[in-house]
């Protein structure tokens, strides 16, 4: 993973015509956000398993994943009562501070993609994709076996992992 954190705006694009429905993106999202970052430990170890920031939809032969779009005009930002939802100044991404969240679900109401997950037990927003801000490259993009999920820069040009 290294120390190189991203500092330029980027976005994830889903090409539903290539999504196999394997859901490996979810697996690796969970691993990337786990404490150990090790797949066996994250799934079978003692540490609490994080919720993936990915919503997977499937019906018949159609499948695709959805993550937070980090919209330019994010409705969730304006709906948040506590300021838990905020925009990172450097990267322009929409991030969520769990400590400030009170579980009012206004963001879930406002998001037209429906990609925010509620955690009713903890009364907080369970998960929202953070575009792997702590990593060099988003885990779902890196591990999609069919390149259904790709990363693009602000101009829409594809960014590949070096």
């Amino acid at each position, binding site marked *: 993973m290294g120390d190189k954190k991203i500092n330029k705006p980027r976005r994830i694009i889903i090409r539903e015509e290539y999504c196999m429905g394997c859901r490996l993106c979810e697996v690796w999202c969970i691993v990337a956000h786990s404490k150990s970052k090790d797949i066996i430990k994250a799934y079978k170890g003692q540490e609490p398993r994080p919720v993936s920031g990915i919503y997977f939809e499937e*019906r018949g032969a159609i*499948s695709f994943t959805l993550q937070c779009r980090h919209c330019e005009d994010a409705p969730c930002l304006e709906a948040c009562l*506590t300021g838990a939802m905020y925009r990172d100044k450097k990267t322009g991404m929409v991030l969520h501070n769990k400590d400030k969240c009170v579980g*009012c679900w*206004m963001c879930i109401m*406002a998001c037209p993609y*429906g990609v925010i997950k509620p955690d009713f037990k903890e009364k907080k927003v369970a998960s929202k994709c953070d575009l792997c801000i702590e990593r060099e490259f988003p885990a779902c993009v890196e591990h999609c076996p069919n390149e259904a999920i790709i990363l693009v820069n602000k101009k829409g040009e594809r960014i590949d992992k070096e």
Partner: protein
Amino acid sequence: MKTKYLIIGNSVAGVYCIEAIREVDKRGKITVVSDENIINYSRPLISYYLGGRVTKEEMAFRDEEFYRENEVQLILNRKAVRILVEENRIELSGGEEIEFEKLLISSGGEPILPPIEGIEKVKEGVFTFTRLEEVDRLIDYIQANKIEEVTVLGAGLIGLKCTEGLLERGLRVNIIELADRILANTFDQEASRILENALGRKNCRVRKEDTIVRVEEKKGKIDKVILRSGETIPTRLLVIAVGVRPNLGVVKGTSIKCNRGVLVNDFMQTNIKNIYAAGDMTEAKDFLLQRKSVLAIWPTAARQGKIAGYNMAGKKKKYNGLFIMNSVELVGVPTISFGITNPPDPENFEILARKNEGENYYRKIVLKDNRIVGAIFMGKIERAGIFSGLIRDRLDVSSFKDDLLSDDFGLLVLPAEYRKHMVRGEGFTE
């Protein structure tokens, strides 16, 4: 005192106005006048504060740093009492005067106080539920008087949120509601029933189609409430929450045009060119009703404040209108609702509904001309936000009407052409 941008009111509309101004104008002086004694707090969180779920500090949705970074002069504990429109000046309650170039009025709403016989004799024990300092007094009163049971008049959003806070404190609550259902603006009979049952399991009793006609006091403190039905309830604490209306005190007597609220155009301007208004006291374009309305909800105030800010700073931005939407979780039952959920003339609409008994699960969709104009989600609220997009885009849903209530409702039931852009990842832009 002179300033470039003057904002009356330091809540969500004012804050988003500041952010928008600063995006365009980094230097122009911004002054905010607030009649409360706190740097910043999110008003909807007062029920969480009452229930002990957040501290006062945690209620801030912007911190002190925000005002410093954005070079905002914040004047607290001052009410704006008069606007001298022709002179571009306001007068504050402390006597100060501020000259402005651009003004934003975002003074919010004030609670409606219905006429109740005997209320003027009660000196203590009657509260409304809108301001933080009021909640502080309420909590003190509860503790000082060892209150165990409370009567709440009004089962609208404020009344119910207050009830939840009280229940979390371990108090018993009696709710008196005039309509035949609770949360009458949003709920239909079915949704109301589900929530009433949930409340009933938690030490809360709801009396519908009733109201308080008279109160009695003992030694100046409230002692009883008498209902229209004739019932008498011993009450040592009464919260009046029958509704809010736009706080128009500061515009009264000026040439600023009002109806129910201050009338604004699509740029958040009042009829006075350099005076803008945003938030709970404005009457602005309503997307669904296709006319102007007062839409007193947080996201609207945020959006209006933002648009006003852009326009005030010289960047022209249009307000496309929003529609009513609410997210509220009461006694463990989450509910999200949009738009027209309970049309008075249901025969002109198409209504789809589904409920699962014993699960607090209820879903209702209201259609007109095959377009979604309203929805209620109770119990399972995941993906509910998708409907806000469907309403906004006025999407014709006839091709997937049967899927609207299905368990796996998501973007994949939408027509491929429409969802292609959403799935690809373009992101929401106004």
